[in-house]
């Protein structure tokens, strides 16, 4: 195919795409005009039904909890996939002298960066924990909390280096914690089935006061497990990627 034919083919395709795209845009409802009934209904009944004032969490972990289980396991499988793809291959070994400190050819982290990162570790941990455990009362949730918790570990890596990161998050431990997080979510749902209720039905007491930390039954519990799973999955993935930067090709001792 000659260059000009190819260009015409591309332009024809682009014109078609642009036409359909514009057609679609014209058919959209006006900005800020929500046409569906579901959002309005949920807004009206969610707090009364679940005692969760964080309605986003109520939707995520209750009304569409089954979808969220699926998403949870997407992340779980992604982390597992990263672990499998980034395993140590034959002929790969860690750079020598690693235990004595990272390679001498690399500049060490400046004290300013290390201190700044260290200062943030505590507040970030608290924030992440708060987000993961207050899904029922605020627009936070397990996913956000988990990611923020993982960020705390990344800050520890920034301040203390890879050896510290490894010491506080050994792969076996993060693996196990991740499995507990993902399995916990699924198990909460299965417990409902054992009681003769639909999967992921909210069978825990909802609490008396909407918006209390102890309210909302399984929503708060599921959010907590999601936080654990997400934090562990991200720490695991970042850890695997970090390990990769340390590996060199070649036979041991060469």
């Amino acid at each position: 195919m000659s260059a000009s034919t190819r260009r015409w083919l591309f332009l024809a395709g682009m014109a078609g795409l642009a036409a359909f795209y514009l057609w679609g845009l014209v058919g959209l409802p006006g900005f800020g005009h929500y046409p569906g009934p579901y959002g309005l209904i949920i807004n009206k009944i969610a707090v009364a039904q679940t005692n969760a004032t964080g309605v986003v969490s109520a939707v995520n972990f209750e009304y569409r909890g089954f979808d969220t289980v699926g998403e949870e396991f997407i992340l779980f499988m992604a982390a597992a996939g990263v672990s499998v793809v980034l395993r140590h291959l034959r002929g790969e070994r860690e750079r020598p002298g690693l235990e004595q400190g990272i390679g001498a050819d690399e500049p060490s982290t400046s004290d300013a960066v290390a201190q700044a990162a260290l200062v943030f570790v505590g507040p970030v941990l608290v924030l992440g924990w708060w987000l993961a455990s207050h899904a029922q009362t605020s627009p936070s949730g397990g996913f956000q909390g988990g990611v923020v918790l993982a960020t705390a570990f990344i800050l520890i890596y920034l301040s203390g280096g890879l050896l510290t990161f490894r010491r506080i998050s050994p792969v076996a431990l993060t693996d196990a914690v991740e499995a507990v997080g993902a399995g916990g979510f699924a198990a909460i749902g299965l417990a409902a089935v054992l009681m003769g209720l639909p999967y992921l039905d909210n069978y825990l007491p909802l609490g008396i006061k909407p918006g209390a930390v102890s309210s909302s039954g399984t929503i708060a519990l599921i959010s907590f497990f999601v936080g654990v799973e997400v934090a562990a999955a991200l720490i695991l993935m970042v850890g695997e990627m970090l390990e990769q930067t340390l590996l060199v090709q070649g036979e041991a001792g060469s």
Partner: protein
Amino acid sequence: MTASLQLVLLVLVAVGATGVVLIRSPVRQVVALSVYGLLLAVLFLAFQAPDVTLSELTVGAVVLPILLLLALAKVRERDK
């Protein structure tokens, strides 16, 4: 007020996205991507989605750039 703020942020996000695409050096591109993630997070906040803001702030501005930087470090190691 809110509408104009949303408009300004939309323009900033468009500029940021174009910048990420146009920057050729991978490391600089990652830094630009991180800034772009931050812009998106603020945009979501302006559109009243604080939950998405929190996710975007950590995933888009921190975790994704770190994963990309690590990948770049690995590639550079192999090229040596």
